[in-house]
C-alpha cells in the first residue's frame, strides 16, 4: 500500500473549536446525576420506595387499622387473618371472618376459633377504633381500613398481648426509620467538624483527632453503648429516649466518617481548582463552602445512605441488649426483640414479620446508596 490516500472529508478549525466535546454531558451536574441515577433501575426503585415510606410516616395513624399499643384481649397470638372476597360463592368484597382465640389446655396455646358463617366486610375510609392525632393537629378516628363493626382485621396477626402486628410495624416505622436519619446527622456533624478540622488545618488538631479516632476504635462498642445508655436519665419520655438512642448510634459512628472526611479534605485541598480559588484570593470559608463542599457532598450523601442501614440494625441490637427503647414506644427493634424466643419461631412465626421491613429498608437504603454513589461519581 504505497499509494497516498487523502480523504475528502472537510476540515474547519474554527467550527471545530466551538463544537462541544461531550454534548451528552452538557447539563448541570445535578441533571447529569439524575440521569445516571435513573439508569440504575433498582436503585431508583428503592429511592422511590423509601421516599414513599417517608412520606407516609406522618400519616401512619390514618393508615394503620389499630393503634400501636391497642390490646385485644380476645385475639392473643392470633395468626394472620385471611382476607377474602367471596363467601359461599358470592362476591362480598374484602371481608374477614370473626375469629376468637381460646386457650387450649392441652397444648398450652391459644387456639383459633373461626366463625366462617358470617363474612364481615372491611370498611374503607371509615371511622373506627381509638382516636389518633392526625399530623399532630387534631384527633380523628378516620382510618384507611377499618374492620367490620365488632370484627377484627389482623393482617399479620397479633402478638402476645393481642396487639396488631401490621399496625405496629407501621407505627414502628416512625421511630425505626428516623433513628437512622438522626443518628446519621449526629455522626455527620461530629465527623464533618472533627474530620474537616483535621483535614483542613492539619498539625496538632489533626494529630489529636487521629489519636481520638484510634482510641475510639480500639474499644469494643459494647461498653460505650452501655455507658452511654446508662447516661440517659431514666425518667425521660420515650421521645427523648429515642432521640438519645439515635444520638448514641451517631456518636459511635463518627470515627469512620471523620477519617473519610479528613482524607477527602486532604485530597481536595490539593486539587488545582481549589488552588486556583486560593490564588484568586478566596477566603478559606469560601473555598470550603463553594469549592470543597459541593465536590464532597456526593460522597457524603452516598455514605449517609449506607450508614443508615447500620443505624437501623444498631437500634435492633440495642433493643436486644435491653439498652434501647422501652414500651410504650414501638420500634422494629423492639418488636424483633419480642420475637426472640423459641416459641415465636416455632409456634407464632408471624411475630417475626418485622424482619421483613427491616430487611426491605436496609436493602433499599443499600441499593439506593450504591446507585447514588455510582450516579454521583463524575467519571461514570
Amino acid at each position, binding site marked *: 500500500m504505497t499509494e497516498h490516500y487523502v480523504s475528502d472529508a472537510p476540515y474547519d478549525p474554527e467550527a471545530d473549536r466551538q463544537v462541544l466535546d461531550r454534548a451528552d454531558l452538557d447539563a448541570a451536574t445535578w441533571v447529569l446525576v439524575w440521569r445516571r441515577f435513573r439508569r440504575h433501575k433498582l436503585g431508583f426503585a428503592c429511592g422511590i420506595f423509601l421516599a414513599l415510606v417517608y412520606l407516609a410516616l406522618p400519616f401512619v395513624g390514618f393508615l394503620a387499622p389499630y393503634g400501636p399499643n391497642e390490646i385485644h384481649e380476645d385475639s392473643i397470638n392470633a395468626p394472620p387473618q385471611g382476607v377474602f372476597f367471596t363467601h359461599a360463592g358470592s362476591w362480598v368484597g374484602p371481608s374477614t371472618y370473626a375469629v376468637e382465640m381460646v386457650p387450649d389446655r392441652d397444648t398450652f396455646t391459644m387456639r383459633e376459633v373461626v366463625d366462617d358463617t358470617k363474612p364481615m366486610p372491611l370498611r374503607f375510609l371509615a371511622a373506627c377504633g381509638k382516636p389518633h392525632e392526625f399530623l399532630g393537629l387534631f384527633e380523628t378516628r378516620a382510618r384507611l381500613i377499618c374492620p367490620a363493626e365488632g370484627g377484627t382485621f389482623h393482617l399479620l396477626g397479633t402478638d402476645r398481648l393481642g396487639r396488631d402486628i401490621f399496625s405496629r410495624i407501621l407505627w414502628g416505622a416512625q421511630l425505626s426509620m428516623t433513628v437512622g436519619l438522626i443518628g446519621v446527622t449526629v455522626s455527620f456533624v461530629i465527623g464533618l467538624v472533627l474530620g474537616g478540622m483535621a483535614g483542613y488545618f492539619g498539625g496538632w488538631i489533626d494529630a489529636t483527632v487521629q489519636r481520638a479516632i484510634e482510641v475510639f476504635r*480500639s474499644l469494643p462498642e*459494647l*461498653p460505650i453503648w*452501655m455507658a452511654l445508655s446508662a447516661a440517659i436519665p431514666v425518667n425521660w419520655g420515650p421521645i427523648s429516649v429515642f432521640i438519645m438512642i439515635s444520638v448514641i448510634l451517631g456518636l459511635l459512628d463518627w470515627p469512620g466518617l471523620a477519617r473519610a472526611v479528613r482524607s477527602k479534605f486532604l485530597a481536595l485541598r490539593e486539587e488545582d481548582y481549589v488552588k486556583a480559588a486560593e490564588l484568586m484570593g478566596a477566603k478559606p470559608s469560601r473555598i470550603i463552602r463553594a469549592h470543597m463542599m459541593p465536590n464532597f457532598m456526593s460522597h457524603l450523601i452516598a455514605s449517609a445512605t449506607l450508614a443508615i442501614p447500620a443505624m437501623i440494625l444498631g437500634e435492633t441490637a440495642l433493643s436486644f*441488649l435491653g439498652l434501647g427503647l422501652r414500651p410504650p414506644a414501638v420500634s422494629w427493634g423492639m418488636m*424483633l426483640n419480642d420475637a426472640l424466643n423459641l416459641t415465636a419461631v416455632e409456634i407464632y412465626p408471624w411475630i*417475626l414479620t418485622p424482619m421483613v421491613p*427491616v430487611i426491605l429498608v436496609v436493602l433499599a437504603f443499600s441499593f439506593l446508596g450504591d446507585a447514588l454513589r455510582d450516579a454521583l461519581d463524575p467519571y461514570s
Partner: protein
Amino acid sequence: MIRYLLRRTGTMLVTFMVISFLVFLIINLPPGNILTNQIAEMRASGEEASIAKAEQLIETYSLDEPVVVQYLIWVGAWPGSHGFSGLLQGDFGWSFELNRPVIDVVGEYAALTAIVNLAALIFVYLVALPLGTIAAVKANTWIDYLAGLIGYIGLATPNFLLALILLTYGARYFDLPIGGLMAREFEDQPMSWAKFQSILVHLIAPTIVIGTSGAAVIMRRLRANLMDELYKPYVETARAKGVPPVKRIIRYPLRMALNPFVADIGNLAPQLVSGSVMVSVVMSLPTLGPILLQALKAQDIFMSAFILLFVAALTLIGMLISDLLLALLDPRIRLGGRRKAA
C-alpha cells in the same frame, strides 16, 4: 527497623495509657459497683450477715475511693490497702462476679473466643473473597446482583435473629447442636479427634451467623476496591501479556485490593469481642463477649476493665502488625532501614 519499632512502641504505650484511663472511667460511669449491688441484693434477701463481708471487700479493694485513685491503684501506681498491687505488679484483679482471678477467666475464654472468631474469619474470607471477586469481575451482571442481594440480606438480618432461627431449624432439620462449643462430655477432656470433631460441628452455626454479615461487608468492599483496580493499566498490561484471566486477577488487582483489609487487622480485636457478643449470648458460646457483657452489667469493674484493656492491647498490637504486614505486602511502603536491602 529497630528504631522504628521502638518509636512505635513508645507511642503505643502512651495511647495505651490513655485508653486504660478512659476504659476505667467509662465503666465507672454508671452509679454503684458490683459490691454495692451485691449488698443491695443481700439486703433484699435478708442476709445482713454477709453485708459486712462485702463492705469489708469494698474497703480492701478501695472501691470507696475516687475514680482517679481507684484507677491508680488498679494500675499499681498508687498504694491500695495492700500496698502497690496492680497491673504493673502483675495483679490483674479479681472478679467478684465469678469469684476468681480475672486473668484465669480471660485465659480460659480467650482461646475459645479465638477459635470461634477464627472460624468465622475463615468462613468470611472463604465466602467473601470468591464472591466479591466474581461480583467485581462480572459487575452489573445478574451474578453481581445475586451476590449483592445475598450479601445485603446477610447484612440486613439482625445477627441474633439469624442465630435463633438457625438454631431452631438447624437443630430440627440438620441435627446441628444447640449452643455451646462442644458436646458436654468433652468439656473437661483433653483434646482428641472426637472432641475436635465435636467442636467443628458446634462451630457450624455460629460461624455462619457471625460470618454472614461480615462476609457481606467484606464482599461489598472487595467488590468496590477490586473494581477500582480492575481497569487499571497494569491489569491491561497483564492482559496484553496473555496471562490467563484467573491467574491475572489473583496476581494483580486482587492482591492490590486486599491492602485495605490488611490495614484493617487492627480492628479485628474489638470486633471479635463486640461483634459476636449477641450471637454468643444467643448461642451460648463460651467466649469473651458474653463474659464482658455480664461483667459490664454486673459492674464487675476489674473484670470488664481488664477485658477491655486486653482488647485494646490486642488492637494496638494488631495495628502494628497490620502496618508491618502492609509494608511486607506493598513494597512501596518501607520501614526505616530496609531501603538499602532492596
